[in-house]
């Protein structure tokens, strides 16, 4: 054990004092913190827009005077953990308008400032760790075993009573310990800066998520340390080991992931958004026809209105005053048309969902090829933990919005909102046979601009789907990282145990 301790101490001392570690470590800390700063600034600018949006949304909700105009906006706040793992947080929309006559769907991200800047890579912390710490790990350990063998010190070390496993473990823990220093520094400084920033609020459970992302990052770095050790154990010279490591890095970080995504993106076909929009338009036309087909046959007759607006699917949206018969016609149209429209909206929702699922399938196909890549496992698990993965940030919210749409329509139904109050505030008792029968005060009182706001105190509120603190899928990715660690530990150990400690000439 004392041998192991001295080996570990020696390794730590040697790595800490090496020029390679000092330069690359400083480089990594600066780059990591820079990525975190950039993403934090981005988060704050999106949050500022979100805060404004929320105020506007509340005003909009309180302005509803008839149920046809009742729109409950669901605005998804930017994720405060996005600087650590951005996922799709700023890519998919952030607003869904829940309205009885609209299938829930994400609207474009209003927080977006310049979509053309998407041509540049934006690094979150997990991507920065993926790129920098992998190369650091390979480069730092590349010449440890091979270098000592080349210099002849390996032979000297084993002339003492030292086990190869002790030596391998000391090398592994020493390098990992050294690499953990800049990694921990980045997480600590970053977390402290976010903690002290009054514009960022992170809950205790989210801090636990940050801690889990940190552990995933350590596990990720550990894989590359083990890969580096395995390469070093088999290489005849330090330079060869470093070079092999760097070649492997380029392949695993740049070539292979890009190649698979590029291939899948271009071979697994998914309709474009304009094709999808055309499909939705077709369904909308079908719904309009179906709704029209259930309208009362006799029609409203010659109608004059004090104020009238016809909305989606030819259903009355808002009416001030009109003949009683016309009121009855529109009420009947709403009563018959709404169930048909709601069925149709379900078709629109399903079509949109199917389109999204095609994208999800395309992505999953690409991910299937990358499942074994440590970098992929890190970024995937980090975004799943942070809640910026497409499943939690898009599909689950959409499903929640769909179920809220159902709750809202039930609420409106309970309130009798699919009757006269769908489009007017005039009570049935005040309705007259002809428009000329209304006196001026009544006409004035029931002008839509004079309508009172709906009392929505008992309206159900949208509650976001609760997420597990650490989702199961992210744990699977984390466990896969641990498994890869174990495999490479065994492989590296085996390769080293069979390698010759003498210099190869």
């Amino acid at each position: 054990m004392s041998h192991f301790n001295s080996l570990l101490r020696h390794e730590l001392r040697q790595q800490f004092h090496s020029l390679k570690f000092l330069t690359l470590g400083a480089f990594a800390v600066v780059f990591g913190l820079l990525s975190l700063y950039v993403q934090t600034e981005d988060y704050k600018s999106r949050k500022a827009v979100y805060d404004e949006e929320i105020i506007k949304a509340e005003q909009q909700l309180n302005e509803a005077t008839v149920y046809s105009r009742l729109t409950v906006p669901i605005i998804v706040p930017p994720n405060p953990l996005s600087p650590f793992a951005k996922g799709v947080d700023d890519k998919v929309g952030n607003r869904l308008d829940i309205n009885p006559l609209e299938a829930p769907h994400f609207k474009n991200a209003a927080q977006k400032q310049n979509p053309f800047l998407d041509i540049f890579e934006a690094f979150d912390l997990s991507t920065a760790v993926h790129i920098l710490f992998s190369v650091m790990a390979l480069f730092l350990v590349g010449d440890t075993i091979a270098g000592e063998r080349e210099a002849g010190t390996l032979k000297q070390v084993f002339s003492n009573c030292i086990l190869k496993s002790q030596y391998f473990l000391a090398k592994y823990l020493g390098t990992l310990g050294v690499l953990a220093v800049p990694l921990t520094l980045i997480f600590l400084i970053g977390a402290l800066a976010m903690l002290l920033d009054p514009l960022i609020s992170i809950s205790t459970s989210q801090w636990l998520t940050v801690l889990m992302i940190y552990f995933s990052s350590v596990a990720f770095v550990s894989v590359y340390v083990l890969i580096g050790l395995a390469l070093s154990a088999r290489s005849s010279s330090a330079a060869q080991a470093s070079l092999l490591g760097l070649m492997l890095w380029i392949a695993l970080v740049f070539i292979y992931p890009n190649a698979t995504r590029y291939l899948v993106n271009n071979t697994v076909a998914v309709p474009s958004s304009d094709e999808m929009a055309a499909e939705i338009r077709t369904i909308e036309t079908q719904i309009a026809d179906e709704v029209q087909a259930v309208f009362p046959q006799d029609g409203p007759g010659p109608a004059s209105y004090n104020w009238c607006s016809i909305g989606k699917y030819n259903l009355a949206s808002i009416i001030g005053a009109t003949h009683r018969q016309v009121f009855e016609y529109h009420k009947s149209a709403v009563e018959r048309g709404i169930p048909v429209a709601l069925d149709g909206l379900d078709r629109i929702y399903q079509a949109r969902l199917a389109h999204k699922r095609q994208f999800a399938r395309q992505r999953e196909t690409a991910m299937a090829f990358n499942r074994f890549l440590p970098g992929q496992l890190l970024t995937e698990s980090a975004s799943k933990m942070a809640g910026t993965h497409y499943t939690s940030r898009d599909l689950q919210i959409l499903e929640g919005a769909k179920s809220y749409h159902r709750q809202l329509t039930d609420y409106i139904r309970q309130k009798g909102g699919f009757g006269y109050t769908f489009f007017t505030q005039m009570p049935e008792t005040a309705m007259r046979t002809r428009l000329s029968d209304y006196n001026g005060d009544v006409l004035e009182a029931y002008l839509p601009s004079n309508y009172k706001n709906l009392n929505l105190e008992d309206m159900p509120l949208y509650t976001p789907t609760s997420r597990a603190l650490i989702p199961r899928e992210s744990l699977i990715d984390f466990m896969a990282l641990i498994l890869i660690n174990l495999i490479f530990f065994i492989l590296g150990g085996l390769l080293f145990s069979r390698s010759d400690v003498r210099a190869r000439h």
Partner: protein
Amino acid sequence: MLKTLIEKELRAQLFTPRMAITTTVIVLIMLVNGLIFNLRFNQGMTKTNRETAATTQGLQENASSLMSLLFYEQTLIKQPSPLGFIANGNEDVLPNGTKMNYFTESPLGHFKSQNRFFSRFQALDWTFLLVYVLSFVCLAFSYNAFSGEKEQGTLKLILSNNLPRGTLILGKLFGLMICVALPFLLGLLLNLLIVEFNPHLVLQTREWLILLAFTGVAMLFIAMNLLLGLLVSSLTARASHSLNLLLMSWILLAVIIPGISWVSARKMVPVPSEKVMRERYNRDVEQIYENGDYSWSWRSSWAGQPPNETVRRRAAGIQATDAHRIQFYRAYQAQRFKQTDRAVTLAKLSPFSLFRFIGERFSDNGYLGLKRFVAQARIYRSTVNQFYTDRDNQDTDSHHLLWNEPWASSTFGSQRPVEPASIPRFEYSPPTLSEIWQQSQWDILILFFWCLLLFAGTFTTFIRYDVR
């Protein structure tokens, strides 16, 4: 002597495992690039042709009356570039078309499949190969050019002959150039062979000339990377230190500078969010309504009659709003372009990004290609609008009052049919070689200057290099 040195370098590198790995990787990437490009190009052309056919049909169907044509919304799409295999230019994240009619123009849109669930990725095009793979290969080939030979003691031996140090640098440079260029040219030929087999794409003289010119620029880029390796190698005494320094330079130039340039650009040229702009626009429109002497009255009996004062005031109100919307949207887009241009300029501080944008210029893809498309789409809109206005002016029966309310305004303009073939059609024209040269000459010169600078640096340091 130079020839001997080159031969020596070739003998030392050509039959090594790293050469075999390099060649295999390059050939594989080029094969994948060629195959995927063909697939993408064909899909893109099918989509473009479909939209063009739909537009033709739409114009024919609406040609019975000029007023119908004014309201007909055309879709303009940037057709895929036949040289897209040089640089894809992140086409997947950029819009590729727009819709417009006489009165309005829509924001740029995606007339292609765009998967927002994917994290951003690079296409395996020639620029990717050169920026991420070949630059790294250059580093791997050159990091120990001097420091490695010094460690082995061979540098001392070489220079014990009557060999000028400049000649040794040139020998190393040319020898390594051949080693790196050979697999690249092999992959390039294979790629072109695959592209040539695409029955839907015929490369014309223009394309071949551009390809030839780009290959020349690619050689310049390879030389720059090798010279960087040689410079660092001549600055250090040990190969491992050279590798360390080069690795950091590579990460800085290929990853960090391109990755943070946009951040500085965002600070330098602020662009408001879409939401803020929407609110600003709504306020402007309210202002226009308040300040102008407009009327919003309408009676169905006015249709078909000569326009009265109220109709004119209504039309003026709508025209003013439409004009403001187009102006407002263009100004917002110009601001976004300005910010992106700044980010591109800052990214070009790295020769890697410089080369990437040269590639985009040559292939007419990416952000630079999109800007060209936007400019052409605007010119087209002016042309076609002028054509419609002239036609309306020629019609003595027309009241020449055109505004964007189809249900109200359709009887106030010309009702005469228009010959569909006479309507100007949008056809995207890619840049000629001379245009490409004009637009990218400074970038190429800067790349050349980088080479000169690095060569001068290598020469200066190597002259003083202790070979023992």
